[in-house]
């Protein structure tokens, strides 16, 4: 009896030991990194001076609210576009015809391109003396300010392009093996293509769409290189601001950089938390 009872416990212990090599580095980086940032943002780990608990770094950072709203705006718009485009791209890929196969190959290729390379390419394509302007024969003075302009068009376009491919592949990965059967079943119940998309494909894709969108949102909010390359210099998104302050010559700016990072982290955690709550409520996820 004792042996029977102890067996699962031993198995559990063994499983825990086996995953420890993976968990320990992640825990050090995530908990250690986040912990250091939070401590630093609260003035408890200054580079110079006496540690003292305060929220000065949050209050003294210039235009923190504006940068937060800008970051949220870019992330929300680019994630929304990526979700819509990604979903319909996935539908096209799942259809299995030659067009879908080409789109699938293009999406897979897009995912492998680093964001920095993507940003440089979008810059070369959309700038006022870029490839597109030259192909269309539009002089620089007449070309809209797509790069570093007030609309953040190039930044949003780059994120939307890359993340839509990511969203599409995530949806295809989760649906490819079972969607044909459900689609045929729905067709045999008299559902038209539109009804199948609305009543079957979208609800079944919703969990993976939500998860992929949450990941894309978190990445878009946290990454700096695309906004740094293609965005305006002021106002600047949180990630660009955090990096600038972190690299600042002024040592007192370090807590401010940490404060900006903490705000970014809280926004990301809040959005991902809401997404996870939404996921748990989805019947298709259960």
């Amino acid at each position, binding site marked *: 009896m004792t042996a029977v009872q102890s067996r699962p416990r031993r198995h559990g212990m063994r499983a825990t030991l086996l995953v420890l090599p993976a968990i320990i580095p992640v825990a050090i980086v995530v908990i250690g990194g986040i912990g250091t940032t939070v401590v630093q943002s609260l003035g408890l780990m200054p580079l110079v001076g006496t540690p003292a608990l305060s929220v000065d770094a949050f209050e003294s950072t210039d235009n923190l609210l504006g940068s937060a709203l800008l970051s949220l705006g870019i992330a929300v718009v680019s994630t929304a576009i990526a979700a819509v485009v990604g979903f319909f791209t996935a539908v096209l890929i799942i259809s299995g015809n030659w067009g879908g196969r080409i789109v699938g190959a293009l999406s897979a290729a897009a995912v492998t391109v680093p964001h920095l390379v993507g940003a440089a390419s979008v810059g070369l394509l959309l700038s006022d003396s870029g490839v597109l302007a030259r192909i269309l024969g539009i002089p620089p003075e007449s070309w809209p300010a797509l790069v570093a302009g007030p609309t953040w068009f190039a930044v949003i376009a780059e994120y939307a392009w890359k993340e839509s491919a990511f969203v599409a592949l995530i949806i295809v990965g989760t649906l490819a093996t079972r969607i044909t*059967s459900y689609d045929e079943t*729905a067709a*045999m*119940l*008299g559902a038209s293509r539109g009804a199948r998309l609305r009543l*079957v494909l979208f609800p*079944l894709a919703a969990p993976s769409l939500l998860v992929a969108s949450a990941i894309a949102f978190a990445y878009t909010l946290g990454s700096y290189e695309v906004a740094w390359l293609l965005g305006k210099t002021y106002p600047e998104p949180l990630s660009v601001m955090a990096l600038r302050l972190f690299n600042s010559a002024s040592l007192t700016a370090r807590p401010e950089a940490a404060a900006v990072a903490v705000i970014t982290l809280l926004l990301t955690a809040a959005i991902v938390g809401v997404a996870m709550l939404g996921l748990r409520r989805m019947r298709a996820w259960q």
Partner: protein
Amino acid sequence: MTTHTQTTDVETSAITLTGITKSYSAASPAALREVNLDILPGTSTAIVGPSGSGKSTILRIIAGLEDADGGQVRLSGRDVTALLPEQRGISMVFQRPLLFPHLTVLDNVAFADRAAGLSRGQARERAREHLELVQMGAFASRSPHSLSGGQQQRIAVARALAAKPSVLLLDEPFSALDPGLKDEMHAMIASIREAVNPTILFVTHDRDEASAMAERIVVLENGQLLQHDTVDNVFHRPASLAVARLLGGKNAFAGEVRNGVHHSAIGAVAISSTVESGPATLVFRQEAVSASARVPDNRTDASPPVTRDSDATACQSRGPRELHGVVTSAIQRGPRRELLVRVGDAEIRTEAAPGALLSAGDSVTVSLPCEALWTVPS
């Protein structure tokens, strides 16, 4: 020997297939070859055949899920060959229930009405009636994943019926269920037929299921329709030796018919006097003949011997043909005891008479009732 085909008016058939052919690739053999089939409204028909014979392909072509390479599909006289699946007014239940995981049981059954544009309330009201039809009314608010396989398949049938189809196609719907559940499902289909009388065409590899659920059977092999007939005729009056084999018949003796008597390795056996003379194979099902312990004597032929062909009369007037032999093997299968009996140079597969505990080496008398005997072209 007559060929057993069903001739019906195309306009009155629920399903009419004309010259249906289908190949999945140029390299592989044809999945269906010139299949012609008429299914009458309100009937239940089983398609049986070995794996790869084209059973499911027929269903998928009727449903519109596969395009035929040639031929025509008509439903109640209407040519639907070029129509999309959702435009054909057909429902299909697959081997897996495929209930939509994001919907409750009730909303699964309400799906067809929702897709047709009815409000959620109206669709659910109608769905409840169909849930009651499959005795699943109490499970309306449950999630599909909380149900057993049998319960899920009941819901799948209710969902298909809720679409008010002109034809209900079932592709091995109960093959994954255990025997007890299968019996429940057969009873459910029978009660559904009493209540709404749909035209049913289903695929099964289970001969017992085919005879339990259908009044007619279509036999397919290598994409060719071998026979479409009543259950009794397909089992006991097969159109060919292939049909007899596919339906599980194990006794076949090549020989020749002369004046209503079949001559083969098991001897002269009187059959119907209307059978034309010439080469023919005598077939009879092992379940239809029985063996019992024999009181020893010196003859190997227990019946009055057929000494001359001119003595042969109609099988009915002669009574059961009795042959003497020795059991070479005995296998118990549930309540039945299957015997292999050597008669002369031939071996007959039969079953022991109830209560007869026969085993290898026993001398037995095999009784061949007239109704069990049939000949097919050699």
